[in-house]
């Protein structure tokens, strides 16, 4: 490729949107049939959603299309022509771009630099002035904007995801694949991003293929859906003709075939006065902490969580919730303040965790709670590998019994429905939702007194989300104190007993959930308290 500058200002997608046809795509990983003769038809300039339970094969299918995996059988037709996509580069040349749930932007650089460097045909020498000019006129065409000179590290999650998408658009993609792009975004941010993509499809500039678990997004934006189930095509439909019930039954298949997972019935929380008598499990006093760049992120925070109570922490992402959870988990040092569990100072040591029964379900479990180079069984043993059932031999506590480790993980896998049910798989071979389940199984696999949870159903299909919510409620009924940090206000309203709102590192609002007014909460989340 030559290093000439693409003239973005003239027209965004000179070649127009791509149509895709996937014909009987199959892909195996070892003994697992991730895809079994799956076909898919996406019209040019349509907004197409790909649905399915966790582990259904959605990510695998789009990764084949984007050149990350090579399918074992089947072929792709792009704009009616058969194409052999051997690498992401091939896919880029055909105009296919992909955006992930996680960010790939370089956080030390500015928005402009990220956009420039994304190009495949990066020339050896950049004419910075001209690049900037091109960028500026490109940005002027976009309905959402980012400050070109802002540093990526200073962007919020929503803005980073926008940058990911802008990066793709700047490279004149004709087909944009998005794998759960909104799981790190608030509903408002999601609407902004998806609304803009939707508009581009209406202008016949782009085709969008999006994986999502959120029916709300499907009904709002999709023209058509394709549903996968356990590696097979389960059905297709057009919108608005196809209703969410119909999609749900395609996703889940025949109801008799699956374990019953009753939805979360809102249980009546314990009465207020008995709650006041309940033990104060977690007390946080005057907590201060900084983020990765040393900027204060948590400021003078006080919070009490009692046993048998679930407290929700609401807030726009980037207001110190992440740092708060990391401090509680022992992944980050507090700069001041104290944390008491059961009345005793808590420093997140292994001994204290066990003594007080403190467990957690952090967000991004693969990054925060798993060792990706280890198997499912090993990951499930992270909590108790040094305890009697898993250790053995002379002086219990010195030697591992891998046999017992695997046996225990088998029973956890069965109990929590992790798929595929193979303890010897590397954990990063599981689908996102199943990693989450494996961690949940490990953390709830013993009696819990205090549970710290952050965005527990990001990226989960609705049945899995309901199952996790139910587990949380069961833990609460059993007397656990739960701190639930979530960016999903609906989740908090449905589950918690009390709600606090975090903004700029402080708690700015606290209310019993039963009396909560979403409008007032939204106002506080947006910093309207000041």
């Amino acid at each position: 490729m030559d290093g000439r500058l693409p003239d973005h200002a003239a027209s965004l997608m000179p070649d127009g949107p791509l149509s895709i046809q996937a014909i009987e795509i199959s892909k195996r990983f070892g003994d697992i049939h991730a895809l079994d003769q799956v076909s898919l038809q996406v019209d040019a300039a349509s907004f197409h959603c790909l649905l399915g339970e966790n582990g259904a094969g959605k990510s695998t299918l789009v990764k084949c299309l984007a050149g990350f995996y090579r399918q074992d059988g089947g072929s792709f037709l792009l704009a009616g022509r058969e194409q052999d996509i051997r690498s992401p580069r091939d896919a880029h040349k055909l105009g296919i771009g992909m955006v992930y749930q996680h960010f790939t932007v370089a956080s030390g650089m500015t928005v402009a630099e990220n956009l420039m460097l994304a190009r495949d045909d990066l020339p050896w020498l950049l004419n910075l002035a001209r690049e900037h000019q091109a960028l500026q006129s490109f940005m002027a065409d976009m309905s959402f904007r980012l400050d070109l000179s802002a540093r990526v590290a200073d962007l919020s999650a929503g803005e980073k995801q926008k940058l990911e998408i802008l990066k793709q658009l700047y490279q004149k993609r004709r087909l944009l694949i998005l794998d759960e792009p909104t799981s790190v975004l608030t509903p408002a941010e999601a609407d902004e991003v998806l609304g803009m993509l939707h508009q581009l499809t209406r202008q016949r500039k782009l085709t969008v293929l999006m994986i999502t678990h959120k029916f709300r997004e499907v009904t709002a934006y999709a023209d058509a859906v394709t549903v996968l189930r356990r590696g097979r095509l389960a059905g297709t439909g057009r919108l608005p003709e196809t209703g969410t019930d119909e999609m749900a039954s395609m996703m889940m298949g025949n109801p008799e075939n699956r374990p019953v997972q009753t939805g979360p019935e809102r249980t009546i929380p314990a009465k207020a006065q008995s709650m006041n008598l309940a033990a104060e499990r977690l007390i946080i006093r005057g907590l201060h902490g900084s983020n990765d760049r040393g900027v204060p992120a948590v400021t003078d925070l006080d919070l009490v969580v009692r046993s048998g109570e679930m407290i929700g922490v609401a807030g726009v992402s980037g207001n110190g919730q992440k740092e708060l959870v990391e401090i509680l988990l022992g992944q980050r040092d507090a700069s001041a303040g104290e944390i008491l569990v059961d009345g005793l100072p808590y420093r997140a040591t292994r001994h204290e965790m066990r003594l007080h029964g403190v467990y957690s379900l952090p967000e991004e479990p693969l990054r925060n709670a798993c060792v990706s180079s280890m198997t499912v069984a090993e990951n499930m043993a992270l909590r108790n590998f040094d305890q009697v059932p898993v250790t053995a031999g002379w002086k219990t506590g010195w030697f591992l019994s891998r046999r017992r480790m695997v046996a225990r993980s088998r029973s956890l896998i069965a109990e929590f429905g992790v798929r595929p049910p193979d303890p010897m798989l590397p954990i990063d071979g599981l689908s996102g939702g199943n990693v989450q389940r494996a961690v949940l199984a490990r953390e709830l696999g013993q009696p819990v007194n205090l549970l710290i949870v952050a965005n527990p159903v990001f990226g989960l299909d609705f049945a899995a989300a309901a199952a996790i919510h139910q587990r949380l409620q069961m833990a609460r009924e059993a007397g656990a104190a739960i701190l639930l940090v979530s960016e999903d206000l609906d989740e908090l309203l449905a589950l918690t007993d009390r709600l606090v709102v975090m903004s700029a590192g402080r708690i700015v609002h606290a209310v019993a959930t039963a009396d909560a007014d979403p409008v007032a909460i939204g106002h506080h989340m947006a910093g309207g308290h000041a």
Partner: protein
Amino acid sequence: MNMYRQALDSLRPIVAAIVVTAGAFALFVAASGYPAVEALMLVGKGAFGSGFAWQNTLSRAAPIMFTALCVAVPARAGMVIIGGEGALALGGLAAAMVGVWWASRPVVMVLAGMALAAWVTGGLWIGISGWLRYRRGVNETISSLLLAYIGQAVFNFLVEGWLRDPASLNKPSTAPLDSRDMIGNIPGMEVHWGLAWGVLACLAAWWLLRHTVFGFAIDIVGGNPRAAKMTGLPVGRLMLAASVLGGGFAGLAGMFEVAAVQGCANADLMAGYGYQGILVSFAARHHPLGVIAGAILIGGLGASNSLLQRHLDLPDAAAQVLQGLLFVSLLAFETLNRRGGRHA
């Protein structure tokens, strides 16, 4: 079944790296005006071509196994330690001194004392890097390298000064060990017992990492420190322990060089085994059993060196070029393998 496939998969990049290295070395030799094919044959012959070659190779492999463990064990805890040469030198010196001071005691006691002294000295030396990382956040790679230089300087200072045997005239050395305290050869071979102990050390390290609570904890720390912290593991202390353990192995390398080869501590101890251990550990992906094979391979390259010099008159640096090529292509193929494999 799966395990064999995995083992084969992990061998592929290594074989590819060896082939590419051979090719590149041949080109290098040819470009310098020497016969390329003959040079390659000589490498093979000098390393594994005869009983004598094998014995030479294995004698060199013994210390490399220990120094490779000094890289491998801390690496499992997520640290890149490259200062084994310093721990080897100081461990050897400590062993030599114990050997001299305890000369009148029973042989078993002398050897055990030497091993212990070497182990503790090497462990403490590398432990400094672990401690700096744990307490001060100092990068352990840099600090271990600097400490290696310091260790060698301290070694030279002591051996040329206070601890010098006045009888060692042109090569400053410590006083020689009593010949009764020297470690002999494995029966039937011209290879000293250090080889057997090296293999044993690799097996022990493997067992420790694979089957003990400590080993598993180390693997968690190295695999994902965030997950380790979340489950309450004492990350810093485990890193410190891994570095002390690794340093102990490098110290033992020095002890065997003293007690089986040199008979005293002198500058010949610092023959680059510490650095070759880095190469071996990376090639073996820090797997203690892989270290055994890797050490034999690198020992072979060292053994063939003299043959290359004698027959082809190749300069001394040729062996270093060969090692460097091997290291770079191993790392390159390793990265490629990861890219092509499971990820994202």
